[in-house]
């Protein structure tokens, strides 16, 4: 059963990273481009993009690797 849990986590991780993560990265970048501003404002904007887009992407990727690890351990 823990193999199934690991597989589900892997699938969920791909969905989270590829859906919410990439989408939020896109939306944040779009907001940054639309608002414009100077170089310092852009740098701050990029940090916000990294935080808001990066969190779901990294969470998704983490879930994927954790799931793979659980699945492999269960197989052994």
């Amino acid at each position, binding site marked *: *059963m823990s*193999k199934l849990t690991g*597989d589900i986590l892997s699938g969920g991780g791909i969905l989270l990273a590829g*859906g919410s993560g990439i989408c939020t990265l896109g*939306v944040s970048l779009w907001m940054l481009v639309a608002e414009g501003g100077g170089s310092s404002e852009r740098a701050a904007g990029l940090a916000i993009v990294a935080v*808001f887009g990066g969190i*779901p992407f990294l*969470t998704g990727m983490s879930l994927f690797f954790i799931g*793979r690890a659980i699945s492999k351990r269960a197989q052994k």
Partner: protein
Amino acid sequence: LNKSRASDDSKSICVNFSQQTTAARWLPSPKATVVYRIRQQRKSKLIQIPTHPLVHLAFDMAAYVCAGLAARSSRGLFRQRIERLARISNASYFISLAVGALLGAWFFGSLNSLSWKQPTLSHSLAGALVGGIFAVEIWKWKHDITESTGITFVIPVCAGIVVGRIGCLFSGLADHTFGTESTHPWAVDLGDGIARHPVQLYESFSVLLFLGCFLLAIIRKNELVLKQGFYLFTGFYAVQRFTWEFLKPYPVQFHLNVFQWLMVLLFMYSILFAQRKARTR
């Protein structure tokens, strides 16, 4: 006043203005004042929704957490099905499901949004559902599995939709999931002062209603729902989404928009596969 009458009045006001002298143009006509007051009254009665595009992220996360919790808490209801799924599936099943859902989401979402005045890439829940189902059916065909494996996903998917759609509402106009103009008392203002159908809530509530009925049927061990539960869900989702799409300002091809055509396909899938399952019983 309804919308058409108001727009007619506006046109007549413009004509009146053009006929007036230059000095008189600075004073609004009594008719224009009445129209302005009615619009302001309607605007003040609207349900104002505070929105921000990044709210979607919080609700996305909440949707995933709720789906996970729903899966965990409902596993007792489908113990045998889950054990069976664990025996017949492997990692490739879930990876196919996730990749299919992602491809479907981005492909069908973008197919719709690339035909807007300002073309953009996007992803959609309907596309994810169809893409995921398509990928799993191919996986099952390759692994020579004919039984339905979807019923265990119904409760988590429903929970995810119910929460996720609320996020779409609070994301406002930037999310492009808003409804058309409405004169109903429950119409919402997403920041542009226009009364709109809260279509996101329509979908959220209808799926919540289905979830309640589905849970009740499962607890009562309804045979039809236990055997055809997944196809009942996909059929229901297709019908309700097809209906709500009439309240969205998306471009149409051959009288229906991209998602409505997709829901026609999903509904046909539900009927065909439910019949196939009934025959192989």
